[in-house]
């Protein structure tokens, strides 16, 4: 085979080797090794911006890296390398891949003109391959970002707990922005001190994280302050352990107001691009979305719950009771306990409303302790509570009522002293009342009045016969109620 034919063949072999590489690092290593192999060079390297990216034949720390990094393409050079001796260097620009240089060094013989040409060809092949890999890498990264964002959106829409969503977002940002290395942190402004931010979650290597460092002063931190002030991505050069690096921060918001910063920190080897700045902003915006959604959920939750006891209010209780009754095609079996406190008004009148609220709160906790998973507890208003027990017979419900009555009969410790109240409980079952939640509540209410009339601190189970008498006495009862329950 002629010299030209052999050189062409060697370029083909190099292309076959580097083009089968999956990433830039393995392509460079394959190219360096193959080029050294082809030219029987002991040493091969690729140098970017004066830094050796990959080398073969020189042990790390041997001191020869600086000499390799200083080789200038075009000139015929000799290098004196420790442990190797005098070498002849040949090098060429990678061309299509920026400022990279392929460097080969051989002990035995200097490179001929034909070999220097081959080095130029090999550098060019590697340069083109790296450019192709970078394009592919950018496309793969874009796809990965889309996949992460889709997963986050699903998590937010499915109301995955907020800490989990935040953790997922930080991990995704680490994967995309720092390639699994470096660090990503989410700092949120302290609700009690707007001048400080608290480290909420983080992922990755703790490059220069000081143990216990979980608060920062927003005004004093150049990165966080820059991002918050400008309300966009802010960048600074950083360094840790003598290693150069960088940090980027993007602001996060809750309901339109600045709520913190998402910070990514990487090493100098990994370069930042506009696409990565956009990606950081996307992850920050998803955190904003999750925070705002969680806030909205909190507000909705507050609107549907009694602020004193934390129990469902009448509207939410009724809605959930309707859903319970509709289970199993309307055959859901529910027994309702309507609990009315006896002598509660006296607590408010004598010890004040704060004491009354404290007592209601403790009764609310008692209700929650009483029910099982799947049952409902609610405060219907004033001193009226309701429990909806699933698949519970009237007898079993009566036993529950007894327990409640006994416990409520115990003194409560409230601000200003001890409060003693009682409870009257009405019981009604959907087996008799049917699937209408209002009817079930009405029946339990009637039974409760019967219990009160019967002497308080007792329970009564609804009977149809109560309806007739109740309608007659209902009006009178409503008038007399205040008198009966002073």
């Amino acid at each position, binding site marked *: *085979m002629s010299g030209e034919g052999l050189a062409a063949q060697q370029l*083909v*072999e190099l292309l076959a080797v580097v083009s*089968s590489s999956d990433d830039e690092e393995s392509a460079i290593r394959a190219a360096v090794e193959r080029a*050294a*192999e082809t030219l029987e060079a002991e040493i*091969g390297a690729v140098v970017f911006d004066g830094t050796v990216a990959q080398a073969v*034949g020189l042990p790390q720390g041997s001191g020869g890296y600086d000499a390799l990094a200083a080789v200038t393409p075009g000139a015929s050079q000799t290098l004196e390398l420790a442990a190797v001796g005098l070498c002849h260097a040949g090098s060429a620009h990678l061309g299509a891949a920026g400022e990279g240089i392929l460097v080969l060094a051989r002990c035995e013989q200097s490179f001929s003109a034909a070999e220097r040409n081959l080095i130029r060809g090999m550098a060019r092949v590697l340069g083109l391959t790296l450019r192709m890999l970078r394009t592919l890498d950018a496309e793969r990264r874009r796809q990965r970002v889309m996949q992460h964002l889709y997963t986050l959106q699903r998590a937010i829409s499915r109301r995955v707990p907020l800490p989990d969503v935040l953790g997922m977002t930080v991990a995704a940002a680490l994967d995309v922005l720092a390639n699994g290395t470096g660090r990503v942190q989410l700092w949120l402004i302290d609700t009690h001190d707007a001048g400080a931010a608290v480290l909420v979650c983080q992922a990755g290597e703790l490059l220069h994280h000081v143990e216990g460092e979980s608060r920062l002063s927003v005004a004093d931190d150049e990165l966080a302050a820059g991002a918050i002030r400008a309300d966009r991505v802010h960048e600074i050069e950083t360094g840790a352990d003598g290693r150069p690096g960088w940090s980027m921060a993007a602001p996060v918001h809750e309901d339109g107001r600045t709520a913190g910063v998402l910070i990514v920190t990487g090493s100098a080897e990994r370069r930042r691009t506009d696409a990565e700045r956009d990606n950081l902003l996307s992850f920050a915006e998803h955190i904003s979305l999750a925070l705002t959604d969680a806030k909205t959920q909190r507000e909705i939750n507050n609107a549907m719950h009694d602020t004193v006891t934390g129990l469902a209010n009448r509207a939410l209780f009724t809605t959930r009771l309707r859903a319970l009754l509709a289970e199993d095609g309307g055959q859901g079996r529910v027994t309702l306990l309507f609990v009315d406190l006896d002598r509660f008004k006296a607590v408010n009148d004598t010890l004040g409303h704060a004491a009354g609220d404290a007592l209601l709160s403790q009764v609310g906790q008692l209700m929650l302790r009483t029910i099982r998973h799947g049952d409902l507890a609610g405060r219907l208003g004033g001193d009226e509570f309701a429990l909806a027990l699933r698949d519970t017979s009237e007898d079993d419900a009566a036993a529950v009522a007894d327990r409640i009555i006994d416990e409520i009969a115990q003194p409560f410790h409230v601000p200003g002293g001890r409060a003693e109240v009682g409870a009257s409980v009405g019981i009604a079952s959907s087996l008799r009342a049917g699937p209408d939640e209002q009817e079930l509540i009405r029946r339990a209410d009637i039974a409760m009045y019967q219990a009160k009339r019967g002497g308080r601190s007792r329970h009564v189970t609804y009977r149809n016969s109560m309806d007739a008498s109740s309608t007659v006495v209902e009006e009178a009862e409503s008038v007399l109620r205040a008198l009966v329950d002073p």
Partner: protein
Amino acid sequence: MTAHEDSRAADNTRWMSVGNSVLSDSYQAGQQAAAEAITGEDPKLLLVFAAIGHDPERLAEGIAAAAPGVPMIGCSTHGEIHPDGPRDGSVVVTALGGAGFSVSTAAIAEISGRQREAGAEVAEVAKTVDDEFPHRALVLLTDGLARDQELVLRGAYGVLGAGVPLFGGAAGDGWRMTGTFQLHGTQTFGNAVVAACISSVAPIGIGISHGWRPTGEPMVVTASGDGRVHELDDEPALDAYLNRLGAPETVYRDRSELQQFALSRPLGVQRRSGIEVRNMSTEVDVEGRSIGGGGDLSLGGLTWAMEGDEDSVLTASAEACRSAIDQLGDRSPVGLLTFSCAACRAVLGDDGIVKEGARIAEQAHGIPFAGFYTYGEIARTKGINGFHNQTMVVMALG
């Protein structure tokens, strides 16, 4: 069981000698060969080449009993090389000693799938040898049944760099192809790499030579993967190879005939300073029609069918010895390590390997030598490649 001459150098600071035992009891064989090898003061290293039939644990114990505390590496073979002629079923122990040598040893187990890392790790440990002497070389003994042996060398080269020659061989198992063993002190392994970094006051020469020449036009590797070549010139690789050589019809389907045919017809890969040999006989794939077994053949690469004969192989063996010795200049070597290929042994036959031993002895001029028939030869002296097939590699210790 001949005690060999003590080849102490003129300044009396370095020596090498060789012991051998054909006893069947592994403990006794190890003990006897080691005792016979240690003929001088201050032994620094034992290199052990043993038949696969030996029990490696008992062998190591026997050697340790005869040479307590002396660093040792070794492996199983496809026949042992000894100054009195080739051996089968024996144990050959080579001892290096004297104040002019400094040695450190290492072993890394479970190398398959992580050859490059294993090579780096073993070199990292072995390189801790005293740096007081100007000349160094790393002797590696690997599991010959592990694939991608080149990567072990690349890993070691990455740690040691171009300043330290690599030398050694891949352990054999007498063509059983079921498992080799490696020794490191009293530790025994399969699927491992053991290494000794030798530092010397005197130069170390390494010779490499094979007796194969290309025939016909080259073929292009058009499909490869997992260490095998699937297609040559867009044809199933095995068929393209056999067609190019005009192989008899029976060879195409009969595994043993194919192996026999391929033994003396390796493939060649063009390098700047010559053609490297790739053995095709150890992993024939009659069903899948792929070829492999002898090391890397790159996708897109050119390869030639190669031919050779007893005479060319023997000439190469002598040339490798001469080259290694010549590199020492005016110095006489204290000894030679001679690693030849198991496939060459098959080509040479029993008479041929006796002749090979005689050729080595001619070059040695009375200095001790020892080695074994390997499943792959290691010698990196220039460039970055160092793994060979069907080649004689020789280390001359100055």
